[in-house]
Structures are given as structure tokens and as C-alpha cells.
């Protein structure tokens, strides 16, 4: 029994985290069709902000809010530095500039802060545990699930009930045409990056909660996770990102619990092979999202 509860909570909390990561990426990748390799660095920026604030007497929630704001700022900066100048010119160019920007941020952290792992302040509640069905579970995992649910609700509202979501998709496919209809396309795209930063900021709080410290390379893992979740879920829809996140968590956790250690080390190989198979089967991911307007 305890094992099942543990398994369930592991899947749900990891899945929530993955879903949040994917959601932050899907806005930029799925809607704007831009591959943002600097997405992971938004998490790093939030992490270092938290670390730098660690010495101050501010209450933790204030620190967290500032960290999230910094991530939003970094998201907007990414757009200005890496995307606006080359956007719509070439997919590969965008990819390389965003990667360059990510290197830039990482090395700035190296240069101005430190190559070493830095401990971030965390509230005590993050490391408390509760006993559920016989299993000892970090309270943080429950908080992650709650936070993901809240963020998801906020995002569905923004994307579905406001014109912003529509304007984003319009500006992403036909930038000039969107402007000719009066849509402030630049602003719309910037706000997409800001939203992405907001999610990255929230993610970083929980991700850091798991690992306790921040290093310059902290963003890689979340970036990979977000990519894969986005892709298998279906990069054109928000639900897809969420489904992809939970599915990935389910796959990983199942492998974790069931593979013998000799095979466990190949876990990533299995996971990614599965990703390839899913894509071969459904190149647009599991959830199609709004139908695409492609025809001959």
C-alpha cells in the first residue's frame, strides 16, 4: 500500500513539475514556434536571485516573489536579445542565438557569482513531511501539485478567455499581417516571453526545493524535460504540455520503480526511444491541439 501511495505521489508531483516546465516552454515553442534554448537559464536566474537574497532579512515569500520577477525579466531580456533581431528569419539562426544567450547567462553566473553550487534559502515547510497511507512524503511534493493546479487554471484562463492567446498565434504566424490589423505584435510576443518567465520562476522555486542549491548549469535538465514533455504531449496545445509532463513523469517513475539497477542506468535511453516511437507514430504529439491549417 505504502509503495503505491508513494508511487502515485511521485508521479503526480514530478508530473506537476514537468507539466509546469513544459507549459512555460509551450508558449514560446508551441505557439511562437521558437526554440528557446535559454529557457533553462530563466530557472537559473530565479535560483541565483534567491541565493543573493538569501542574506537579506526579507520574508521568504517576498524573496520568492522577487525571484519570479527576475525570471520574468530574464524572459523578456531573452526576447530582446536573442529573438527579436532574428525572429522569423531562420529556425536555426534563432536556435543558435538562443543557445548563445543561454551560454551568455551561464557564463555571467560563473564570472560574477561562482562556479560552485550555491545554497538557496528555502522555507521549512518545504522539507517537512506528512505520512499518507503509510508512506512518508515530503510536503513539498504536495505543494508542487497544488501550485501546478493553480498555475494551470490561471493559464487556461489567460489563453482561452482573453484575446492574448489568439493574438499570439496570429503574430507568430504572420507578423506583419498581424500588425496591419492593429495587433501590437511586438508587445504580444514580449508578453509571451514574460509569461514563459513567470512559469519558469514558479518552477524554479519547486525545482530548487528538490535540490537545495543552484549551479550555473542547473537549467539543462528542466529544459530537456520541458522539450520532451511538450513534444510528446503535442506542442500546439496547453493541454498537450500538461499531458506530456504527466506522461513523462509516469514513464520515468515507472522505470525507476521497475527496472533492475543494471538496466536502470539505461533509463534515459529507454525514455527517449519511447519519445522517438511516439513521434513516429504521431508526429504532432498525442494531443493534436487546434487543427492545423495546412493543405495543398
Amino acid at each position, binding site marked *: 500500500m505504502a509503495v503505491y501511495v508513494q508511487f502515485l505521489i511521485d508521479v503526480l508531483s514530478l508530473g506537476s513539475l514537468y507539466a509546469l516546465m513544459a507549459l512555460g516552454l509551450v508558449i514560446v515553442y508551441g505557439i511562437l514556434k521558437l526554440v528557446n534554448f535559454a529557457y533553462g537559464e530563466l530557472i537559473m536566474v530565479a535560483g541565483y536571485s534567491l541565493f543573493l537574497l538569501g542574506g537579506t532579512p526579507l520574508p521568504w515569500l517576498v524573496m520568492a516573489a522577487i525571484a519570479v520577477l527576475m525570471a520574468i525579466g530574464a524572459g523578456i531580456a531573452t526576447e530582446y536579445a536573442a529573438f527579436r533581431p532574428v525572429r522569423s528569419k531562420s529556425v536555426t539562426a534563432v536556435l543558435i542565438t538562443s543557445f548563445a544567450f543561454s551560454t551568455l547567462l551561464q557564463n555571467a553566473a560563473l564570472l560574477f557569482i561562482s*562556479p*560552485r*553550487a*550555491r545554497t538557496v534559502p528555502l522555507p521549512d515547510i518545504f*522539507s517537512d513531511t506528512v505520512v499518507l497511507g503509510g508512506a*512518508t512524503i515530503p510536503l513539498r511534493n504536495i505543494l508542487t501539485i497544488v501550485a501546478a493546479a493553480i498555475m494551470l487554471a490561471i493559464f487556461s484562463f489567460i489563453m482561452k478567455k482573453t484575446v492574448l492567446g489568439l493574438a499570439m498565434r496570429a503574430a507568430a504566424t504572420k507578423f506583419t499581417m498581424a500588425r496591419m490589423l492593429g495587433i501590437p505584435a511586438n508587445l504580444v510576443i514580449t508578453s509571451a516571453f514574460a509569461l514563459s518567465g513567470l512559469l519558469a520562476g514558479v518552477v524554479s522555486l519547486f525545482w530548487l526545493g528538490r535540490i*537545495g542549491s543552484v549551479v550555473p548549469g542547473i537549467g539543462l535538465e528542466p529544459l530537456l524535460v520541458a522539450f520532451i514533455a511538450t513534444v510528446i504531449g503535442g506542442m500546439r496545445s496547453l493541454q498537450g504540455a500538461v499531458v506530456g509532463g504527466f506522461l513523462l513523469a509516469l514513464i520515468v517513475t515507472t522505470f525507476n520503480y521497475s527496472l533492475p539497477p543494471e538496466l536502470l*542506468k539505461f533509463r534515459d535511453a529507454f525514455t527517449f526511444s519511447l519519445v522517438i516511437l511516439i513521434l513516429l507514430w504521431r508526429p504532432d504529439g498525442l494531443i493534436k491541439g487546434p487543427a492545423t491549417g495546412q493543405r495543398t
Partner: protein
Amino acid sequence: EDEIIIGGALSLTGVQAPLDEAGLKGAEVAVKALNDQGGLLGKKIKLINIDGKSDPVTVGNNAINVIDQGAELVIAPCDFDFGGPASREAQNANIVGISTCASDPLYSSWSLGDKQFTLSMWNTAMGATAAEYAFKERGWKSAYVVTDQFIAYTKSLSKYFTQHFKDLGGEVVLEDAYTQGAQDFSAQLARLQALPEKPDVIFISSYMPDLGTIIRAIREVGITTPIMGGDSYDDPSLFEALGERFGNEIYFVGHTWMGAEAHPDMGKFIELYKAQHGSEPDTSFVATGWDTVMLMAQAVKIAGSTDGAAVAKALEENEFDLLTGKLSYSNAELGHQPNKSAALIGISGGKPSFLGWRRAESQPAP
């Protein structure tokens, strides 16, 4: 030429930085101290280090680069994987290379050449010391061992600990693997929790940043079993990451202790270090950097030159008194096995404390 150049390829960035950066700072203090006393063989010493970026290929490139610039001695980074390429280039150039803290027995004259050494004890000694402390001093009879597969160091440390622990009569209830960078320890944790009988001690061979994540994960779910490891625990960011709450019942085998209890000259070194870098040293890896330079200087003085063969001979035939303890080497046929004691350190309340010098009664063969 009125200079002796010591070249380094220590990593200032990447996973190795916490070990190498500290080593470099210590080495800088040593160079300044020697120069203030008039240098070596009447010449000034100059230290040139190029960031190896925790990448073996870059380390190799940089070693060639510094040798090219005239380096006559090479300081190699920690660990066989990262330090090896530098030592190999030093060997190619027929000069002596010493790693500041590589402890895998692969770091030997067998695999690197007859002019290559490491300042650290081998993992045979480190693992055995840990096993004897656990089994003999504390009476812990069963162990759970987690091995980070990442580098030779992490892998062989577990191997020798396990081997010696079993030889002593202990039982290893589960051996588990992990690879640096995975950041997700839930599988291992699940298996640990599922063990029918709780182990007496958990041995984790890994290093920062993931080491902190692993220990936190274990402590968070309420497991208070003692945890043991090697010199990679000697990292202030680990103490900080664990804090008062999780930093308890942790023991590790390191190189030395940054206090007068460990060595009478330690106080002097700390003064010099503070004067040069403006802060107290926070890990014993600064001492390994200082020692490496001092060891080179003493050997060069004995040899009367920086000639590779002569310095190597001096290193093989003498005993040196260093901040990390007394050190002598076996000859090249026996692999340049270092012979030295280990410092045992405990962490409680998030703060490390010195438990004294130890020397294993026996150790496994490499």
C-alpha cells in the same frame, strides 16, 4: 632564464571547480611564500594556470599550452579523469606532474608514466580508512552503498570501501548506482526505503552538487542513519546545502583539517592565505594546492634541478612533511603509491569538526 615556471590546467569552471579552484588558491599562496623566501634554486617561481573547464580534452590542450610556455613542472587537476590528460602531456615532455588530489589508483606511474605522482592517498587507503572507522570504531555491521558512476574516483572509492568492509566481516545490504547530473534520486530512495532491514551506515561516493541533493533527499524522509564518504565531502557548499537540519551524523575521510590540531604549520598557512586572498580557507583542498607546490619545491631542491628524472628520483626516495601529513612514495615499479595518513572529519549541526588522523591497518590491493 631567471624563472622556474610551474604550469597548471586546474579547472575554475564546471564540476571540478570546487576542488581545483581551492587547490589553485593554495598553490598561489605557496608560490608567493617561496618567492618571498628567495625563490627556488635562486630563481623566482612563476605559476601559470589555464582553466581546464572540467573537460579532460581542454585540460590536455592547456597542459600542452603551458609546457609550450616553458613550464618545467605541471600541477595536474584532481581526479584521474580530469588530471590524467595533463600528466600524460607532462610525461610526454619528460617533466614531473603532480595531481593536487587525484586518489584513484589509476593515478599511478603504471598508467601515466614514471614521472607522474599524486599528492593524495589512493582510494585503497581512503576506502579502507572509512571501512575501518565504520566497522571497528563504531561497530556498524551493515552498509548501503551508493556509487556515482561519473568518474574513476567515485567508482573506485566505493569499490575499495565495499571490499574492505566485507573483508572485515561487514555486510553490504544493497549496492546502488547513480550518475552525476541526474538530479533525481527517487529511484534509489525508493529502494532504500523498501529494504527489509535498515542498514547501520550509508556510504555515498559522489560529489557536489548532486551529493547535497542526495543527502537531503535521504534526510528529508526521516532517515537518520549515519552517512559516510570520501574527500569530496570536504566542500563548504555541502555543509551549507545541508544546514543545521540535515547536516548531522555524517563522516568522511579527507586530506587534512584546516586547524592547528592537524599540523603545527597550519596556522601560519592560514595567515598567509588570508593575507593573499582576503578570507579564511574553507576547505582542505587549499592545503593540497599548497602542499603540491611545496612538495615540488622540496624535491627540486634535493635534486638540484628541475630535470624530470632527477625530481622524480628525489620524490621516490624521500619522505616529506606536509600540511596533509607525512608523505612518501613507492618506486615506479610499484606505481608511485603514496604512503600517508588520512584525516577523519565529522559533520554535525551543519558544521565540520576534526576527529583526528587515521591510518588503515591494512588496505586492499589496487
